[in-house]
């Protein structure tokens, strides 16, 4: 029996974060909630990997952070995609699609 939710494969977390942030800027908790929601609770992001990933992306210059006010009126750290981040997202999306097509082909071998 497959588990209720799936741990993210190595390397895909960055792609998911970039994609999530491409819609609007949001804070870390919202990112994890959004991923979980959209994937219908299949994908669950561990905080232990989410925050280091956010800080890593910020360091690479793909996202940038600013402090703002959250939906519940608290001070929170919001992340948004930068221009290079957008390019990186396109690049990673293509790479992912190629990969998944290739994997699917192999799995559907007669």
């Amino acid at each position: 029996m497959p588990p209720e939710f799936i741990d993210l494969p190595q390397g895909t977390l960055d792609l998911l974060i970039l994609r999530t942030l491409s819609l609007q800027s949001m804070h870390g908790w919202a990112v994890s909630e959004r991923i979980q929601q959209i994937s219908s609770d299949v994908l669950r992001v561990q905080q232990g990997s989410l925050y280091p990933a956010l800080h890593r992306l910020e360091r690479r210059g793909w996202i940038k952070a600013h402090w703002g006010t959250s939906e519940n009126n608290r001070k929170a750290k919001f992340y948004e995609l930068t221009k290079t981040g957008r390019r990186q997202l396109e690049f990673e999306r293509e790479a992912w699609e190629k990969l998944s097509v290739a994997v699917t082909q192999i799995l559907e071998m007669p």
Partner: protein
Amino acid sequence: MLHDFLFRLRTIFRRHSAEQELDEELRFHLERQIEKYVASGMSRADATRRARLEFGGVEQVKGECRDARGIGAVEIILMDLRYSFRSLLRSPAFTLCAVLTLALGIGANTAIFTVVNSVLLNPLPYPHPEELLAARKNDSLPNLQDVQRQTTSFSSSGGVNIETMDFLGAGEPMRVHGAFIDAGLFPTLGVEPMLGRWISPAEDVKGGPRTVVLSYAFWRDHFGSSPRILGKTVNLSGNDYAVIGVMPRDFGLPKQTADLFVSLWVAYPSAAAERDVQFMHTYWRMKPGVTITQAQAELTQMDARLAEQFPDTEKERHTSLVPLRDWLVGNVRPALLVLLGAVGLVLLVSCSNFAMLLMARAVARQRELMVRASLGASNRRLIEQRLTESTLLAMAGGAAGLVVAKIGTSLLLALKPEALQRFQSFPMDARVFAFVFAISLLTGLVFGLLPARSATRSNIADSLRETANTSTTGVSRSFLQSFLITGELAMALILLAGAGLLMKGFLRLRSVDPGFNPANVMTMYLQLPETRYPKIPSQTNFRRELLARLNALPGVKAAMITDLPLAGNFVGHRLVIDGRPAPDPGTEPEVQTLSVMGDYFRVMEIPLLAGRDFLSTDREGQPLAAVVNQEFVREFLRGENPIGQRIDWARRDEPHEWMTIVGVVGDVKHSGLNQPVDPAVYSPYSQNDEAWRRWMTLVIKSQTPSAALVEDVKKQVWSLDSQIPLSDIQSMDDLLAVSVAEQRFNLLLLGIFAALAVTLAAVGIYGMIAYRVSRRTHEIGVYMALGAQPRDVLQLLMKDGIKLVLRGIVIGLAGAVILTRLMVSLLFEVKPTDPATLLGVALLLAAVAVLACYIPARRALSIHPMTALRCE
């Protein structure tokens, strides 16, 4: 890439707010998550629990975020440093103990290393010192000049002999040290004068102009550093010399000190011409590319040629060249290396104590460490943190050690061991600082790592258990502690053994009978200038009159001799005995030759064993008389009656002037207490007039030692001749002390190191027992409540300590047997494995260590059982 760099940079400068932001960001997440669970109907407590569980270790996440942001090594070190600094300041007693312990160990090491650095490692103060050689044996000027002319290995060579000269400046006549040199010496050493010029080869001839080059100190002290000194004249021993140069401040001869430099040919022509007056130290500069083997080979050939040409005097030359540095440091090297090794052991002992202090601190901070570890701090981070702390402490210890070393080196200089006399100071150069930095760093890392490893996360479970049940101690920690204590005791024992052996040797040396009674004997040196006292009668008149006046002083007995016992210098002459086949010329035995006047033997209390003392009738024109020592009889006249035998100096041409042995006196140590006695021949001043017999050392025995006596003697001398300087004023006791100064220096230093090591080891074992007692208070309370006797409790507490003491002493003894062999050259008549000494120091250390166990154990007995039981 640029972005990455700027980002990292900003992180470093904004690290404070970055940390805060990270904190806030994570807290926000948690709170948001809790809110979510509450909204879904959970109780707040459950929501909090669940959110926290999901989140995992906050510290761990923070650490990974920091890593992700690229908070690099620098950042972590800065953070750890700040943390260490704060936590060290919070426990000043611990910090002070640790820093002091290390300051002593590192300071002592630095002091000795500074000396080793100056003496053994620093380059000699001459250009291209690697080209410079020294001859082991002194030589005469004619030989030196022949070699200079007939060899090709050397670019230059020169000789020097220090003689005292009388200087008549302002005030009292003074004795100064004149360097009698040949013109080759300056170019060989290669140091240019600061003012003027060197003595040229053209001036360095018999009858050449009287010129002098001054040392910096002499120029400063007597001519007020006058820049117009060149061309002025200086009166030396009755002659005027024109100043032609001044040497720079840091110039010095390799082994000796000189106030001024004159040509030997000009100032002392009679000695310069004598091939067998071999009194010059010679220095040689090899041409670039020539090896010492080649140079030595050429000199050996040259020796053979000289032996052929001058068979009478030069048959046994055996000139042997050594690099100048080896020649200078040859006799200090073993002592310095032994001291360096000893002080290294002291450092190890203080490092062990340092490690134990860190361990004790780790125990005291167990809760803090546990909390950090359960919050997710990684094993590596905990170790890094503790290493930062120990290194910080070690560095502070090193800095304090520099202060200790500075004081230590000035103390070493104040002790004035002869071998170090050519040094005015021991500068701390870059190499010394590098040394301090290196050993501090090493100490902090290595000795910080030992306890740090035993106090990390893997031990959390142990730690928890320990808090629950205080009567057990971590196994690995107690093993490490036992290991350190055993090591400390072993090293302390090795040092004690070394000091004990030196002490025994020193006592043996001091108990050597010098052959005379030094009590209340004052000595001073004077010399009759050749210009005014050319012949025996005028000299005899002066001497007789002076002694008469001195003996007239109340309670005073005075006499004189050419060279004092223990002063280390004397004149040697080759000897023939009447009626014996003469050995080949140049191979006759050499004996010590001394002149005396007055009741020398009675003043010095040297026993007359046979025959008679000199009489006032043994004077010029009368049959020559001689008194010999026991060793002379033992060596040359064994089994014969020495009285009446005739002896003379080996001569080439003139007919023998036989001296008749009239008496035999006891042996006197002339070269030092640890040196064998040479055969000696004493003759009366009034029957000899060689130049060196114008040297005189007054020996004056009084009822009580008194400074006033010196002034009385000066007055009497100057009432006879106001231009004769008096120098080397010292008591015979002082001379005796000086003659063993080097041994005392070694003993004192090794003694201090041993005392330091024993103290530190005692503190270490005391600390261990005290710590264990405090951990077992509860247990002790139970025992005592159950009726245990104080004896039983003491036994229980001291058992472990005593076991360690015994183990340490056994290992130390084994180490001592191996290591003390290295110091055999420093010992006088003591075997390096002297069983009595080893046993003695082992007992001493055992007593100290057992006492160090007993005191804290004893304290446990005063605990009231009820208090002890309640103490948890």
